[in-house]
């Protein structure tokens, strides 16, 4: 396998090579996307269109005493106003449905600055904006909770009076901001620490950060007079949107059709719905289609960031380098409603290592910030920053190379994670090997204030349901339909798996992402699942096509179907070598053998392959300003099988850079009233091209035995390691251990000034 990337050569450990899978065709939606023709959610247009805007809370925590919409309704050009009273809201207290509904339009409380209170539909955006300013809300302002530790403190203001802590299934008796306390246990933690020669204990805080997709949330809806609602939206999952809409609007899924528009980034943030039911209700009230789009400020204040967190780690190792005990206390901010990714963070925090004694306590804590949403390996980056910093400190105590130390303790096939799951075939040690031998790691780093750091991360990936249907054209090409939002090139990676079965070029597949009326149930694009699961569905649908074409050939040749085989793109009789046709020939010549040839599939694959990824970072620290510059960066990841290596590299590079931004720049600056001060893309500073070097990638391929082509999924694991790798590099450069994210200039300066050196 060849690669364009820099200095490396990819590590290929799969036993099988394929004709289409593993090549680099031009993506099928490419021409539309480089010419501006692709239609994203905000590009929706319709005759008679109205525009919707949302009024949002200026308070982080307040009781809503009354809402007066009369002045807004009287404004010229306004067609409808909606509040939460327009939702049926029949769900019992403490249910996720109720919480979801109250997040979309606030119930009796506003729970964060930016919480949606009411919405207006008007003849244009500007009138709608004027109208929301005329809505009068009477608030009783309450003190806010702005961090997980504050929310857990005794006498903290309580967000939800009815909430009780779920203690591994048993309900607490007192109102609490802790929605859940979970625990994972392996062995005996006290005994583990008794065996340790070195013990490191450290506390970490990480700031709230945002997914930062460039396209703001949007939705258009038309509630037809026949009672059917059609919604057009940029979403990671049209079917999950349909489910949520059904629950919030109180109508069956059969009354809802969701068309997924092209999506301008999501990273987990476009799994939840926000505007869709509001646009639907406004359309119902007006009988006209309604389009809504968030401003960037609304995106920051009103959509899921990923949690800030407080993590305490205690780890112990023996003199000869074995990690014998690991303990974590993890408090994650859920935002205003329960549901932080603390469980996923707990599952991953020590999963890279084979540790006999583990105790993990995880807390899901509601705070007065926007309800958090998934963000690329949700929960794992916070955890990875903390754990991989402590692992680095242990390696130093023991006196081992940080990668040798990780290798000595690495999880392998059969290692049991603290959540009880044993690993199947994994690429953990292969990733470490590839890091150790990489020219980046073996090169010498010279110059003052420069350092190198490494870190690794684990992500579990998901499988879940996907459907696919294929129709064969008479010219021997196929049209392939799926319900999987294409967020980064999955039309190609899915189409290639069908092409592989049929032995046709990727270019002979026309893949289309269709609406919820047009394909079988398909879960979201997320959890690194689309190339794995929808790709598998395409593989199965193509096999269905092959079976049907064998039937057609049997008719034409007047032989039994069992006597026909399909080998290397040719249908042929097993006994008569005269009877043979390529896929294309048979497609052309089968017109009179029945109707058009179609294939279909619907899968729920279980053979999910987990991912390991690692990062090598070289940094330079400016001792006067505290600014950290990344000089060189390498991402190594086991992807199982890279179906389209260019887009696999792209996932690894994109995840790495999001991790770099999280590590050194990004954070919600919260003011004392609980509001966000930096709600523009100037002040919430994501990495620009000028901030970065090229991002080198090494694709490791340890085939996942649970997938026809060995695919594991590639979207997420690369984001986990960068902050820790950078922190370890800063230590290598300056002798300071960073304890908080982001490691921005003030934080680095403070650490330098404090002489916070543990060398």
């Amino acid at each position, binding site marked *: 396998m060849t690669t364009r990337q820099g200095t490396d050569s990819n590590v290929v450990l799969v036993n099988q090579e394929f004709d289409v899978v593993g090549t*680099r065709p*031009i*993506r099928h939606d490419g*021409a539309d*996307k*480089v*010419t*501006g*023709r*692709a*239609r*994203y959610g*905000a*590009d929706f*247009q319709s005759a008679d269109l109205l525009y919707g805007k949302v009024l949002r809370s200026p308070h982080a925590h307040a009781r809503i005493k009354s809402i007066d919409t009369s002045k807004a309704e009287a404004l*010229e*050009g306004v067609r409808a106003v909606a509040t939460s009273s327009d939702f049926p809201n029949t769900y019992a207290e403490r249910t996720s449905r109720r919480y979801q509904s109250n997040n979309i339009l606030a119930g009796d409380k506003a729970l964060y600055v930016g919480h949606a209170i009411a919405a207006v539909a008007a003849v244009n*955006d*500007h*009138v709608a904006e004027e109208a929301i300013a005329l809505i009068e809300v009477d608030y009783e302002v309450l003190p806010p909770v702005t961090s997980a530790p504050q929310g857990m403190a005794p006498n903290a203001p309580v967000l939800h009076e009815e909430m009780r802590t779920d203690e591994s299934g048993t309900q607490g008796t007192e109102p609490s901001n802790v929605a859940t306390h979970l625990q994972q246990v392996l062995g005996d933690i006290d005994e583990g620490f008794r065996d340790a020669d070195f013990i490191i204990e450290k506390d970490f805080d990480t700031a709230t950060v945002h*997914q*930062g*997709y*460039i*396209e*703001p949330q949007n939705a258009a809806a038309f509630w037809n007079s026949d009672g059917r609602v059609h919604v057009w939206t940029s979403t990671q999952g049209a079917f999950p949107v349909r489910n949520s809409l059904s629950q919030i609007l109180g109508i069956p899924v059969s009354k809802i059709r969701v068309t997924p528009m*092209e*999506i*301008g*980034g*999501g*990273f987990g943030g476009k799994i939840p719905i926000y505007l869709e039911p509001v646009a639907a209700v406004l359309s119902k009230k007006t009988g006209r289609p309604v389009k809504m*789009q968030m*401003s*960037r400020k609304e995106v920051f204040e009103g959509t899921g960031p990923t949690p800030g967190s407080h993590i305490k780690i205690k780890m112990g190792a023996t003199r000869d380098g074995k990690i014998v005990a690991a303990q974590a206390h993890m408090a994650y901010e859920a935002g205003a409603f329960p549901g932080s990714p603390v469980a996923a963070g707990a599952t991953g925090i020590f999963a890279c290592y084979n540790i006999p004694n583990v105790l993990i306590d995880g807390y899901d804590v509601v705070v007065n910030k926007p309800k958090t949403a998934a963000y690329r390996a949700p929960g794992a980056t916070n955890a990875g920053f903390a754990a991989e910093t402590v692992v680095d400190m242990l390696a130093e105590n023991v006196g081992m190379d940080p990668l040798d130390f990780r290798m000595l303790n690495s999880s392998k096939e059969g290692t049991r994670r603290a959540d009880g799951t044993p690993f199947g075939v994994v690429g953990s040690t292969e990733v470490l090997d590839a890091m150790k031998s990489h020219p980046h790691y073996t090169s010498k780093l010279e110059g003052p204030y420069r350092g190198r750091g490494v870190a690794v991360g684990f992500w579990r990936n998901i499988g879940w349901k996907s459907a696919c249907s294929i129709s064969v054209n008479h010219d021997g090409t196929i049209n392939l339909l799926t319900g999987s939002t294409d*967020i*980064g*090139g999955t039309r190609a990676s899915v189409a290639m798996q069908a092409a592989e079965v049929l032995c046709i070029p990727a270019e002979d597949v026309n893949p289309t992402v269709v609406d919820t009326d047009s394909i079988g149930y398909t879960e979201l694009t997320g959890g690194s699942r689309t190339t794995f699961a929808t790709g598998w569905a395409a593989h199965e649908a193509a096999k269905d096509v092959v079976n049907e074409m064998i039937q057609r050939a049997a008719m034409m040749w007047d032989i039994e179907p069992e006597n026909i085989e399909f080998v290397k793109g040719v249908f042929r009789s097993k006994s008569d070598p005269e009877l043979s046709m390529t896929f294309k020939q048979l497609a052309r010549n089968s017109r009179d053998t029945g109707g058009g040839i179609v294939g279909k599939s619907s899968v729920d694959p279980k053979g999910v392959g987990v991912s390991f990824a690692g990062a090598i970072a070289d940094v330079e620290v400016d001792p006067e300003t505290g600014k950290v510059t990344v000089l060189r960066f390498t991402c190594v990841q086991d992807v199982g099988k890279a179906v*389209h290596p*260019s*887009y696999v*590299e*792209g*996932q690894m*590079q*994109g995840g*790495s*850079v*999001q991790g770099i931004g999280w590590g050194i720049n990004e954070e919600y600056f919260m003011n004392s009233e609980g509001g966000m001060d930096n709600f*523009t*893309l*100037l002040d919430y500073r*994501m*990495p*620009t*091209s*000028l901030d*970065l070097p*090229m*991002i080198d990638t090494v694709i490791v391929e340890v085939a996942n035995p649970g997938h026809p082509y060995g695919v594991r999924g590639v979207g997420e694991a690369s984001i986990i390691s960068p902050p820790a790798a950078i922190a370890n590099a800063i230590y290598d450069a300056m002798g300071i251990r960073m304890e908080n994210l982001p490691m921005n200039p003030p934080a680095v300066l403070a650490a330098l000034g404090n002489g916070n050196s543990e060398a």
Partner: protein
Amino acid sequence: MPRKTYVQTTINGENVEFLCEPRQSLLESLRDVIGLTGSKEGCNDGNCGACTVNMDGRIVTSCLVLAVEAEGSNIETIEGVAEGNDLHPIQQAFLENAALQCGICTPGFIVAAKALLEREPDPSEDRIRFWLANNLCRCTGYDKIVRAVMDAAQKMQEVKS
């Protein structure tokens, strides 16, 4: 509602006349009035670059230009970059180098990169990174975008010589 103003411009080589309110941006007029939705809104305050267009030879974020300011100007949007069905070498290079993932920032990057290569046919990596620093991409980490622009520059040079 405010009275609308008549504006006459040249967009992608065609004479275009439209009406706009004084408070409407060029981006809003391009997208909602004229129907050219290739320019994208990511922030509406000039920081993301997704709405970048070329106005009288300069690249501007069209969300920060009032539509009335476009009177008499010559504008090129992403829709005008290809010549008919022939993609511009930069567009082709973006495809061949897998320089887009979700694609929402791609129009702005291509318009900005084209302006760079018109001024500096053989830019260094640093120069490309500097020139594109007002265009945010959250998917790619910029690696493949920078390589695509370098690739396009090289191919355009080869065609010339």
